[in-house]
């Protein structure tokens, strides 16, 4: 997890709460949301699926859909993934 304070100050254009979802839905839903957003817009995905902290960044970066700005854990076991649409 990185840049907790800076990430918190970011204003997300869209918040996607996918707590309770397991693979591959956090990836599928992040892809779909990003595809509908304009370049530069920020997507915040909130997940409690640990492996999504690896798979979501891998998927969106691999496809050039978004830049991952960072991941913040709050509270324990809940992850906030910040992505900027490219």
């Amino acid at each position, binding site marked *: 997890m990185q840049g907790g304070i800076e990430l918190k100050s970011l204003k997300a254009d869209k918040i996607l709460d996918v707590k309770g979802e397991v*693979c591959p839905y956090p990836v599928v839903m992040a892809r779909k949301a990003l595809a509908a957003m304009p370049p530069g817009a920020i997507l915040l995905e909130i997940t409690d699926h640990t492996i999504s902290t690896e798979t979501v960044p891998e998927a969106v970066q691999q496809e050039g859909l978004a830049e991952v700005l960072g991941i913040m854990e709050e509270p324990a*076991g809940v992850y906030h993934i910040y992505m900027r649409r490219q």
Partner: protein
Amino acid sequence: MSPIVLGGIFGFIYGFLLQKGDLCFVSAFRDWFGFGTTRVLRGIAAILIVAILGWGLVLTAGWAPLSRLWIPSFGYNSLLGGILFGIGMTIAGGCASGTLYRCGMGYVHFWITLAAMGLAYLVFGYTFDPWVADYWFKPLRLWKPFTFYTTFGIPYILTSVIVVLLLAGLMTRNLGLTGWVDVLRESLGDLVRPWQLLRKKSWDTRLVGILIGLTVTVHFALLSAWSITTSEARISVLLVKPLVGEDAIGSNTYFSEIFLGYPQLQLGAGEVLIIFMIIGAFVASVLGGVFRVRPPKLTRVPNAVFGGFLMGFASRLAPGCNVANVISGLAGLSVHSILVSVGIAVGALVVSYYLYGGRLVRPWRIGMGA
């Protein structure tokens, strides 16, 4: 040391390591097909490389008999059962081992998956004789058990080395020697800080792979080949024993078959291993601060129920799950398990294609790099 205690120890280690690496076979196949990443696949490859060499050594040294290998008869059932298993696990979102370690992490979704698998074992038991036996195994399971260890008449360890070289060659097609050195240095570097490592949220999948490969080898030398779903089927039978009675279980062809060699209808080393896999994953997730009771998304409960049921039933049809086949079976160089493993990959590919809206990358390009 008694087999029960050994089962508990090995189960704890497997659960602990699988959680630390978040090493789920569904993720390995689906993410490779879906967006070309091999983070988890690298861990599985590391398990295989260490286990194949380890088992070859164990067999050559005579620390375990050849009969300890899991080499079932094989046929079209192997491939078809593997495909159905791959479809089931990808729908459920977790393989047999992935379901267990996530139960330990507090995922209610995977407790439902596990319950559905348990139900599937019971349904299989009641449909085995005569239907499944007559209409599935009789026409499809055509050939006798076969392992490459005994094919060439050379020492077992030499066969292992040849297979590993072929496997490593395939995996390093996109990676030079430097890549391999980096892989080992990165993975093993973490081991010098054990306390920090225990509290670390997640471990490099290659490190986890190497450690599981070593555990699988010691497990094979001291006790048995690692498997999951047959033991889970025994636990399911024991859970319904108070309801149906011991006689009903004894008169069932399949249930009495899976308890063959058991002095009584009770937990054995394999079943204790399953329970301790969940406990090991629980301890690992608490130490790493990632344990959390995770309520399921109601819209995904059908995935857990249907995927879990299909995965459980298919594990009996193949037979064997991802662990028995992709790990123990491949380390045993069993033709049955090669076919099941191919089937599991095909099943995962089919469902991934649907889940990712028809967009898949080139799954034939295997990379071991970061």
